[in-house]
């Protein structure tokens, strides 16, 4: 029984990581700029499509038709020569194999630019406007971004293969001294979890231990005073928006092998991530992380057949059910502070 529960716990971690990363970005944006960003899921989606683009670029190939060499049904054979392999040989093959993690290199600058562009181009005009209008404008933006991706990449999910070395399963049970084969866990999910944990730790360390982070935290507490002290807090908040976009984008890149991305993936995750943020408490970074993992793991437990036998359909609604209960019992969410979003 313990093994089963432990396995479900592990299964919840990868979804929980994705929720936590998106919720982290949402909370950063909300905490710094005070903007409720419904387009954040779209950033996750754009990240995922950075991975798609990167792989498409890597697998560009020249197609030459050999008229002398006919296939059995009489058409000329097409000779496909991948450019990367032609240029780099075996190293090119490795590049293609590791396209998903490598596309982080593309995703980071792209997301930073998109994030800063979004903030400067649109969001900054909405600081002073009511939350309802912020929700609406970012909701419209999310539709636009989703549709642009649909226009470019088509409506169907595009599967992304994971690197062959990371394809197997990790025998976590054996690592922990149990019998081998009791608890096996897909290696890529483990990678995803460790990656997310690393990102989360990096963001927290950045906010906690750097001067920039200190200024940002001060600005979150009292924006005006920091401004009066002669610090250009707006520029730092813009950069934080960029960082939040990068976090969402990286989460999207690394998630592609687990779920083939299409243009609706952003909204699918966003709706849940908003619930995650609210459960964690608006404006609380640790709350967002905790409730992201909590809801991911609860969702995993709820999809056990034993649980579903007792409460049919519980796996479909558990996240929303928990959100309703938490909001009614603890109106500020798990770790929410006083005075946030209470006007």
């Amino acid at each position, binding site marked *: 029984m313990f093994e089963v529960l432990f396995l479900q716990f592990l299964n919840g971690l990868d979804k929980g990581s994705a929720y936590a990363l998106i919720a982290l970005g949402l909370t950063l944006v909300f905490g710094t700029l005070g903007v409720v960003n419904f387009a954040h899921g779209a950033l996750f989606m754009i990240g995922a499509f950075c991975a798609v683009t990167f792989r498409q670029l890597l697998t560009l190939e020249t197609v030459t038709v050999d008229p002398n060499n006919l296939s059995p049904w009489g058409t000329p054979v097409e000779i496909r020569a991948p450019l990367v392999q032609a240029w780099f040989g075996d190293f090119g093959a490795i590049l293609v194999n590791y396209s998903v993690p490598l596309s982080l290199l593309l995703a980071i600058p792209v997301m930073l630019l998109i994030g800063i562009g979004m903030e400067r181009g649109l969001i900054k005009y909405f600081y002073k406007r009511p939350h309802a209008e912020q*929700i609406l404008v970012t909701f419209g933006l999310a539709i636009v971004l989703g549709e642009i991706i649909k226009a470019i990449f088509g409506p169907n999910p595009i599967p992304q293969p994971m690197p062959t070395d990371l394809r197997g399963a990790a025998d976590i049970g054996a690592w922990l001294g149990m019998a081998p084969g009791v608890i096996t866990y897909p290696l890529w999910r483990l990678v995803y979890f460790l990656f997310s944990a690393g990102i989360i730790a990096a963001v927290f360390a950045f906010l906690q231990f750097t001067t920039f982070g200190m200024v940002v935290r001060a600005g979150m507490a009292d924006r005006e005073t920091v401004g009066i002290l002669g610090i250009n807090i707006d520029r730092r908040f813009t950069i934080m928006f960029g960082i939040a976009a990068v976090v969402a984008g990286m989460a999207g890149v690394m998630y592609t092998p687990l779920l083939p991305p299409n243009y609706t993936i952003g909204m699918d995750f966003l*709706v849940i991530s908003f619930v995650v943020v609210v459960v964690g408490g608006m404006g609380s970074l640790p709350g967002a992380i905790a409730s992201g993992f909590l809801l991911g793991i609860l969702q995993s437990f709820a999809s056990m057949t034993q649980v579903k036998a007792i409460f049919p359909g519980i796996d*479909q609604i558990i996240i929303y059910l928990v959100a*309703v209960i938490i909001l*009614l019992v603890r109106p500020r969410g798990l770790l929410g502070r006083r005075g946030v979003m209470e006007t």
Partner: protein
Amino acid sequence: MSNFMSRKDLTLFLGFAAVVLLLPILATPFGAAYPDLLQRFMIFGIFAVGFNILFGLTGYLSFGHAAFFGVGSYAAMWSFKLLSLNAIPAILFAVVMSGLFAVAVGYVSLRRSGIYFSILTLAFAQMSYNLAYSVLTPITNGETGLRMTLSDPRVIDGLFTSASGAPVPSLFGMSLSGWNGFYFTAIFLLATFFLSMRISNSPFGMMLKGIKSNQNRMNYTGFNTRPYTLTAFIISGMLAGLAGSLLVVTDPLAGAERMQWTASGEVVLMTILGGVGTLVGPVIGAWLIKYFENIFSSFNDNVLNNFYSFLPDGLREVVVAVSGKFVGEGWHLSLGLLFVLIVVFLPGGIMEGVRRIGARFGHMRKGSKSSARVGATAAVG
């Protein structure tokens, strides 16, 4: 005039009724004068007007109104299957069921306000949607959608006549397809509009507006705001259910996708586009969105090629390729852009645009500020 209605309101209502009833003629130049589309104009007009009673008057932004719409659809369909093909019991049943659902959801959600309320309603709608797709399949028929069959019991109909032919909804034997369906739904839209007008001008409506502008102050004044918000929520949910049932009357298929949060988002778009809190605005928004959905999504490259036929060939191909992304399958892109532009530049929606233009004209004509303001309020209606 009597206390029942001021002259201004009566004019507005009569004008609105004239536009609605003459829509088959008025819509002809726009190529929209066919019954299927006009029925949708009416139905989504009802949905948006109902939504506006909650969002526009009370200021509570619900992101889960499609759930009531869906409940109305399913309830009407079950009435058709179990009771009678007559539309009246189906609509009554749908309104009652969505009202009961709204009582439950509203009672819980209205404990919180602001974004928390939005998230709570979203959570309830997503729960309904997910359940409709999975566990509730016996009731909702899951992905296939619920439709009528010849073998349904139809208890009441069975008492009078023996079933013959494919089942279609009717009104005491009168078919409700085509223009009949349009006028049937139009009557409901007029009734809904009248209701919303009466609510807006009533003491109850004043309470709701007070809650929107400052709920705390209302509480301090000694009012318990909860019953008022709950009533507004229920009325709005019932109207959503009415719209849902009318959609089933005119197009007998109920599917779960109309409960999805995108459908909830759509009614928010309609209301914002037209003008939140105005009477006519939500209807205009609903009409515009349904019109563009219909017209834009039917465009294809051939139509575009004809449209841009005055351009030189090379340029035309580029223009067609670019604008092709905005129509047909991609018309949501145009919708999203339009929506962003509206929220950025015209947060009051089209009605605010009308008011601004009206104010400018009034200003030019009378040359005095006070008259411009009078013109403005009159235009808002």
